[in-house]
């Protein structure tokens, strides 16, 4: 783990009050434990392709660090994790054309933890993801059997 990520975890209890001030709904769902859980799940299930430091792997998976993706909208990110993503996608100037597997077998709490970890590590920490939001999107997309394409995701706010 890089020093910056250590710092995020260590300083997390200090920044919670500020997060809560801005986003009261996050009070019950975001804590250090959730962040640690998100990191553990990321390292086991996502890092092998996106890499531990989020730098991606050429020809396998795009980077997350330094891109807008960790801060993208919850409806879009949740759909990617729940059902997967396929087809061409250009990230940081490089095109990828593979298929990210569906991870819908994770519980809503787990997906929320992973996405929150991404946001706090490489995105906008003021926007945590709640299990409730994941649950709503899971329900809304229940009929979905295939992975998403970038074109489809663009139509989702």
């Amino acid at each position, binding site marked *: 783990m890089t020093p910056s990520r250590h710092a995020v975890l260590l300083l997390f209890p200090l920044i919670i009050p500020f997060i809560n001030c801005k986003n009261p709904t996050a009070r019950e769902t975001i804590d250090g434990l959730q962040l640690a859980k998100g990191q553990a799940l990321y390292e086991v299930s996502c890092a*092998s*392709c996106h890499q531990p430091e989020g730098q991606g792997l050429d*020809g*396998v998976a795009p980077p997350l660090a330094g891109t807008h993706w960790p801060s993208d909208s919850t409806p879009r990110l949740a759909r990617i994790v729940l059902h997967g993503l396929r087809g061409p996608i250009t990230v940081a100037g490089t095109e990828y054309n*593979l298929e990210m*597997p569906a*991870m819908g077998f994770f519980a809503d709490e787990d997906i929320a933890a992973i996405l929150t970890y991404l946001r706090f590590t490489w995105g906008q920490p003021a926007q945590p993801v709640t299990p409730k939001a994941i649950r709503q999107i899971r329900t809304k997309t229940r009929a979905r*059997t*295939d992975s998403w394409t970038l074109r489809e995701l663009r139509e989702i706010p």
Partner: protein
Amino acid sequence: MTASPPVKSTRSILVCALILLGLFCSQAASKTSKGRQFLWQTNAYGDDVHIIDIATHEVVGHIKVGPQPHGIAAPDDAHVVFVAIENFKAPLGELVWINPRTQKVTHRLTVGPKPNQIACTPDGRWVYVPCNDQHYWVIDAQTKKVVAKIKTGGRPHNTQCSRDGRFMYLSPMGPPKRVTIIDVKAGHKVVGQIPFANSVRPPALAPDNQRFFQHIDGLIGFQVADIASRKIIATVKHKIPAEHKGRRTRCHGLGIRPDQKEIWSCNVEHKTVHVHDLTREGYLEITAIPMIGRIYWLTFSPDSRYCYVAVRAEKKVCVVDCKTKKILKHIRVGNTPKRNLVITLPGE
């Protein structure tokens, strides 16, 4: 007019019955000596494998093997079937041994993270397992131990064994952009590499060990390498039908028909299988077969009569008649069928 003597008519009936019995016995014997053949289909986002009798194209078995079964391989005599358990939620994957007669898992071995398409030698002694730690793990299936880890870099994903069991060809995705050749009999030693134009994807190997066929990223078709010289000798592009022109796609799933006459290739997003002539240089495209959904992998019956295409999003296997190129049937399987394999259980 006189009636035939009853003795004569009884004798005729007896002779006919004996002939029929003889025919039945010879057919039964031939069936037994040939053995029975089954398609094994892994369901990559499920936890199971479907077994289909290729004489009837009906599902005859269903085995729970573990979360996200991906790769599959079996020796020639099919005394065991190996399945790689990817298990997205766990830090390490597994290799499982299945007895195809009892359809029971008989052994589990922890291997590296997220194992994908495995290969084993024809005698079943060595299993190569591509893991997401930049290594291919080499398993001695006899002692059930990990005996070596071969670093290829990238994301180890596909594996191919030569027909004689001497060489393994390792195709990792990502930056290496090359196939690594291993001499199995020389103690799993790296003996060569074949560079390709881009990240390597599913391969196919001619049984004479002279030509290596490789899907690569960015090419809607495949490249052909001369194994002896380790050089690419052809880049073959599929003919894209007018209705798909301009629509981005990729290729995943390449197979040589056992009679060595054709090579079949899965064009994923165009939902098409392209068939190329393998008997002449140039590898001309013979036909393209539209599928009902996005496809992932294919395999053949040993008599080259049928091709089985995994139609992942539809949760089906498509049965194609290799001669007429017509779709005969769709067989319902599990969640996201990916790799498949036909095994022959010898007659008892």
